[in-house]
């Protein structure tokens, strides 16, 4: 029972033993040693909570947040000791904050729960007691034989037993898992593929043994031991294609399936603003403690004499007199803590969270970030990082698919040293034009090397053909039956890599077609014997065919096997494929064994178009003070030329190179290579220093990068920082992440952004402060692991320069304003202690204390933080330099923080002492000679404060939409209406009626009105004057562009001026 509870609460992982034995079709052995194992059912639970554990678990999680915990402690202290304010004053805001957060989290979880339900309730067919039964997906148990039909997703991790095809294969697509869109062929377990629907259940008496975590699975079938490889497994989430139906046995279900395991943990990123927010919180905690300690000490040092503390009119009770002095001291300290606790803005977190949540919709809504052709709008995966978009200092971008379209077009090839170009569907040697018919244009009758080359290209690939026919017409029949003649208009190619596709399409245009597995080239049929898949480490793939065979990447080569050789090769391969241990390594060896002694056939050239407006975007980013690094796996010449064409490198730039080849050339000198790279770096560095007028670009390749990082990290960083553009080529995926981490952790701790589209960019996207996925052709993995996803690289400019700017200024003001308004709120209370013998008397009524942060001052700042714009988005986009104004977290620097805090203290002093001088000593303020009391005094301070604090925000607001007007004036009006109402009634359940008619009496005095006006003006005018003077004497460029924009008629001229200035990029930072 206890364990069940713990499991429900998520403390215990589901039970796992070392191995699991799966009895196919759940036929357990009748006799013998059978220990039943418990497996997870096939329910996918991505929701965190259940109805029962929601309240405790959510509360537990929320109170792990330090601010909430702090307020909980304060609340408990209030319950325990005799405190100046009722527990309600901190309990209610806490309750409010917790409730709002809980509702939000509950709603999100409910959405997940609904999605789970949809998945869990999906109908599936399972073989039960010899016949097919339809049931719900969640009812699948480990060992069940499941039937999956065409275009269905697999409901659990299955071991493929048989398919409707004679060879027992099936095609699947794993697009929703890893983003690879090609069709993959998976194989049945050899011994079972002959079983089919009727015979299947009774014949299979097998059990599957697997070690738990990993996926090397063994199948015990009768007496055979079969190793199940990846090609026998069908992972949950993948989709069956081009195969009518398959049977598989469920081996991992529900939360134990690979998909569920993989998506478990995703580290949370925190923005720089949140970090400074926490620092500020700590500082305020310090102020709070200081004030509480000071008050406690003063209370005892100065006022503890009986004459003051216990005069005749104010005696203590027996109990109070008898309590120990130490206890008294502690409880006094705690009471002061409670009294001042509102200086920590309780609703800051919840407001920030709401702001981020609601504000993030603007990105998805933005039409400028919407890509018409692909129908993709920008997507926000993490709203936590919105403001980080305004802080980016380094952009790391992938090249292929990010800067370029990733739409490959075959351009030219070289065969045996002769260059060919594709002209009108035919290959023509270089120099020939298509209207010279007697040139040796290659077509179907191509001979010799060319033919071999084309054969190789057309045969060695994984492209699958889909026949573009609506499913209803197919009607369950074999789609391939329709496509005997290659009516090419019906064919669509699906490939895992776009250049593969480009090549095949080009070859097709030239008349060579390979289709499916047993394919026919226009005049010959080939039997595909083995496919050596592409992988990133080998950077090649091979096929072994019965007649000719080939290899391809960009270089095309081939090797002829004699029958004897082939038998040898096959033996190797099969041995490796079925190996029980170290299959991966053995396969590698086998591949290497096959792929040698190759005969060079030629090379192909595939062109990838640059995306729209890449150059402008990079230029804009550079003007915004952002350094752009291109990280690519390409070789250095390609990378440099793309860099040049996309404006990353200028023609005028001095390009420095740090390449392994160069190092090796110099290596003839007998110097250890690490010293050498150091000396090269030094020379590069001195070159930078020599002519600092020119901009520098650095090209570095993966090998020398890792060398440089290992040996001369600091020097390398210096060089990098002084280059305005850096290009890293020949990078492995992990190296990309390493570069990002290196910069991230360098002493300046710059904010980094990584943008990429492919699975190889995922590590860098996750490493960078902000990860952006491009919704490109290489699947959804980058998008899914990113924080934001956009359709095109050019959208990055608006995302950073406009949205980033907006989010940053909004949240920066939001955070500081919160601290400001709470200083204003609590400091008068602190000052009042000096006039009430440090007796912890509150200045304001409890209800005001409670509602100040929840009602009176909450909405204006929220609306501000959703809609504020310092300058028009067009200006921001056209003037990237404005981005520099907010760089380095400048609006949340210690100086501005100090300014806001001091302003808060100043205003609080003015409220308090203004009111004090007005009614303090003993002036009568009412026209009928009657007097006010302490509650009236507090209400006066509070009224002035609510108005001033609201107007202060109004002063900060640059963008007044109707909503700003509504909430600003509405808040003040609400305060008045509420106070009239609150003070107008004798509240039956309240213990004291302190506030009865206090507010009305206050407002009935003419002097008070005059006082309110003068105090507010006194508070705000210095601020206005300061703003005007600063703007006049040292305007920021943001402020200048505000004037420009506001200038109306002047605008066109200024815009022109602006553009004119832009064409001269700023000089690079010079190292002194």
């Amino acid at each position: 029972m206890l364990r069940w509870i713990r499991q429900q609460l998520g403390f215990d992982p589901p039970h796992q033993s070392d191995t699991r034995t799966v009895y196919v079709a759940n036929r357990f052995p009748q006799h013998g040693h059978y220990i039943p194992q418990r497996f997870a059912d096939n329910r996918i639970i991505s929701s965190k909570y259940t109805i029962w554990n929601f309240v405790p678990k959510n509360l537990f999680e929320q109170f792990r947040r330090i601010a909430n915990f702090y307020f909980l402690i304060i609340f408990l202290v209030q319950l325990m000791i005799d405190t100046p304010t009722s527990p309600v004053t901190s309990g209610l805001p806490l309750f409010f904050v917790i409730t709002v957060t809980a509702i939000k989290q509950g709603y999100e979880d409910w959405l997940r729960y609904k999605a789970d339900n949809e998945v869990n309730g999906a109908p599936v067919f399972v073989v039960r007691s010899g016949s097919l039964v339809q049931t719900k997906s969640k009812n699948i148990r480990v060992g069940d034989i499941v039937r999956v039909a065409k275009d269905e997703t697999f409901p659990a991790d299955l071991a493929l037993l048989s398919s409707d095809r004679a060879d027992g294969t099936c095609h699947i697509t794993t697009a929703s898992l890893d983003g690879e869109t090609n069709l993959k062929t998976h194989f049945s377990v050899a011994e079972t593929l002959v079983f089919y629907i009727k015979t299947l259940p009774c014949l299979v008496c097998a059990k599957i043994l697997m070690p738990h975590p990993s996926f090397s699975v063994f199948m015990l079938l009768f007496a055979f031991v079969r190793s199940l490889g990846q090609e026998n497994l069908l992972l949950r989430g993948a989709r069956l294609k081009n195969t009518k139906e398959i049977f598989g046995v469920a081996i991992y279900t529900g939360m134990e399936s690979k998909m569920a395991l993989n998506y478990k943990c995703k580290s949370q990123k925190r923005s720089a603003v949140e970090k400074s927010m926490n620092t500020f919180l700590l500082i305020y905690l310090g102020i709070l403690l200081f004030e509480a300690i000071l008050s406690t000490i003063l209370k005892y040092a100065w006022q503890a004499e009986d004459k003051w503390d216990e005069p005749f009119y104010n005696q203590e009770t027996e109990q109070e007199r008898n309590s120990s002095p130490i206890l008294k001291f502690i409880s006094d300290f705690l009471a002061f803590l409670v009294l001042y606790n509102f200086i920590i803005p309780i609703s800051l977190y919840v407001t920030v969270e709401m702001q981020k949540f609601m504000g993030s919709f603007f990105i998805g809504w933005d039409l400028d970030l919407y890509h018409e052709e692909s129908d993709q709008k920008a997507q926000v995966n993490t709203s936590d990082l919105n403001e980080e978009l305004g802080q980016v200092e380094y952009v790391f971008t992938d090249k292929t698919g990010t800067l370029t379209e990733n739409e490959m077009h075959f351009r030219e090839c070289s065969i045996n040293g002769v260059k060919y170009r594709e002209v009108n569907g035919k290959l023509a040697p270089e120099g020939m034009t298509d209207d010279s018919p007697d040139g040796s244009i290659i077509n179907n009758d191509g001979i010799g090397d060319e033919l071999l080359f084309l054969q190789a290209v057309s045969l060695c690939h994984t492209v699958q053909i889909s026949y573009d026919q609506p499913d209803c017409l197919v009607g369950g029949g074999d789609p391939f039956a329709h496509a005997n003649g290659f009516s090419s208009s019906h064919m669509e190619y699906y490939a895992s890599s776009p250049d593969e596709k480009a090549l095949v399409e080009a070859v097709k245009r030239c008349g060579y077609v390979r289709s499916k597995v047993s394919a026919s080239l226009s005049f010959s049929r080939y039997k595909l014997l083995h496919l050596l898949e592409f992988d990133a480490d080998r950077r090649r793939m091979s096929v072994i065919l019965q007649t000719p065979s080939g290899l391809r990447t960009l270089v095309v080569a081939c090797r002829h096997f004699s029958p004897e050789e082939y038998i040898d090769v096959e033996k190797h391969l099969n041995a490796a494929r079925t190996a029980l241990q170290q299959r991966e390594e053995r396969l590698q060896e086998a591949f290497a064994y096959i792929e040698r002694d190759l005969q060079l056939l030629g090379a192909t050239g595939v062109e990838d178009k640059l995306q729209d407006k890449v150059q402008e975007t990079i230029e804009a980013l550079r003007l915004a003070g952002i350094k752009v690094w291109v990280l690519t796996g390409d070789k250095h010449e390609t990378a440099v030329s793309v860099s040049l064409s996309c404006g990353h490198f200028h023609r005028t730039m001095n390009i420095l190179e740090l390449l392994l080849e160069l190092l090796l050339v110099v290596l003839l000198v007998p110097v250890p290579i690490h010293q050498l790279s150091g000396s090269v770096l030094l020379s590069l560095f001195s070159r930078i220093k020599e002519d600092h007028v020119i901009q520098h670009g650095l090209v570095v390749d993966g090998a020398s990068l890792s060398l440089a990082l290992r040996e001369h990290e600091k020097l390398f960083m210096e060089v990098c920082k002084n280059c305005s553009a850096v290009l890293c080529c020949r990078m492995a995926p992990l190296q990309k992440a390493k570069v990002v981490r290196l910069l991230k952790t360098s002493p300046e701790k710059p904010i980094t952004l990584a943008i990429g589209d492919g699975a190889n960019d995922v590590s860098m996207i996750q490493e960078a402060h902000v990860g952006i996925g491009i919704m490109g052709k290489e699947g959804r993995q980058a998008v899914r692991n990113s924080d934001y996803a956009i359709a095109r690289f050019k959208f990055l400019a608006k995302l950073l320069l406009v949205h980033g700017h907006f989010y940053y200024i909004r949240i920066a003001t939001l955070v500081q304003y919160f601290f400001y308004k709470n200083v204003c709120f609590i400091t008068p209370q602190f000052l009042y202690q000096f006039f009430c013998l440090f007796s912890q008397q509150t200045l304001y009524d409890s209800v005001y204390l409670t509602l100040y942060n929840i009602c009176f001052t909450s909405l204006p700042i929220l609306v501000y933080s959703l809609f504020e714009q310092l300058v028009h988005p067009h200006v921001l986009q056209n003037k990237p330099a404005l981005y520099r104004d907010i760089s380095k977290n400048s609006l949340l620097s210690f100086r501005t923080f100090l300014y806001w805090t001091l302003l808060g203290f100043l205003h609080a002093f003015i409220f308090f002492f203004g009111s004090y001088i007005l009614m303090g000593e003993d002036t009568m303020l009412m026209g009928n000679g009657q007097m006010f009391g302490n509650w009236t005094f507090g209400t006066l301070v509070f009224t002035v404060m609510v108005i001033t604090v609201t107007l202060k925000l109004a002063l900060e607001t640059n963008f007044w939409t109707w909503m700003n007007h509504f909430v600003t004036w509405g808040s003040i009006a609400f305060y008045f209406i509420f106070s009239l109402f609150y003070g107008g009634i004798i509240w039956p359940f309240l213990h004291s009626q302190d506030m009865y008619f206090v507010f009305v009496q206050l407002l009935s005095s003419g002097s008070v009105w005059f006082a309110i006006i003068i105090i507010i003006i006194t508070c705000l005018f210095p601020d206005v004057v300061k703003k005007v003077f600063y703007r006049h004497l040292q305007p920021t460029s943001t402020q200048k562009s505000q004037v420009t924009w506001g200038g109306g008629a002047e605008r066109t001229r200024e815009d022109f001026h602006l553009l004119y200035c832009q064409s001269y990029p700023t000089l690079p930072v010079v190292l002194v």
Partner: protein
Amino acid sequence: MMATSYNAKDEDGRVTVCGPGGGPLLRGKKPENTALKQQRLAAWQPVLTAGTALPALFAVGLLFIPVGVGLFVTSNNIRELEIDYTGADASSPCFSCSQSFSWNSTRPCTCTVPFYLEQPYESNVYVYYGLSNFYQNHRRYVKSRDDGQLNGNEKSLTEPSKECEPYAYRDNEPIAPCGAIANSMFNDTLELFYNDPNGTKIQIPLNATGIAWWTDKHVKFGNPGGNDQNLSAAFQGTTRPVNWRRPVYELDSDRGNNGFVNEDFIVWMRTAALPTFRKLYRIIGKKDNVVPTLPRGNYTLEVVYNYPVRSFEGRKRVILSTISWMGGKNPFLGVAYIAVGAVCFFLGVVLLAMHHKCGNRNGDGDISN
């Protein structure tokens, strides 16, 4: 916070395939082109520049200075006289009374303080008593009351709130009114005499009503069982506060001003904000338009000295004051208005000079620097 660890929905996500055309062109995801969603809401974008601030500065300056002068003059026209009768030093008339104080003395100590009015007080004159060093705003003191009891609640009358401790019960009898505030009610009696130049001493009639807030007297405070009942019967079973000489139902002979609705009591129960405070004591009504309320001349203040302040170094004062629409004498507001107005005006001039001198530096904006 949005890091939803894993979304089951992804399984059914639309698969983007890599093929020419990519299926029929869907426009389902296109965001709406509304002002809100495109962040194009119509908005007023004020820019705080010298151009906008200058008129505001001058306006504030030009408005505030006359207002301040007006307030200052109004305040100056108010007559106010303050008499300290604490009796702290030996020369003062109340010295002996202040020395010989004891709570259980039955014989009242009286002292007379003569004073001279240099100017006649024309309109209504308000008589205040003032205490200093008296912390009515001490937390223990402020909460030591039972508003339910004061409102006439029968239950609270016999069972005073815990907050009233240690002034809730005396000899197991509930105290009415309970609490420290009520217990320490100011109980000096002040009387004013005009010394006519012909030697006669004329007592000036002091009005004891209209000194408390109307809402306090008529809504917040109420006697148990209504105001018209026989009060001594209504307060049956309760006892007077420790420091009081009379029970609460004998505060005044006027039935409408007795018990909890006694205005002196209500005034005292409104705790002051600061340790030095005044409370309205009596009002001297204006008789007619011909004779000033208080003519110039010699007066005598007769004090029945009951209230001890020596133990906490307090002072006791009597204040005579006339009143304007803005209350009593209050030079602060006028001075503040004049000062703020002057500063604004001055800053306006400085800014104007700067604006003028630096020419179009701001307006035309040389953006390129």
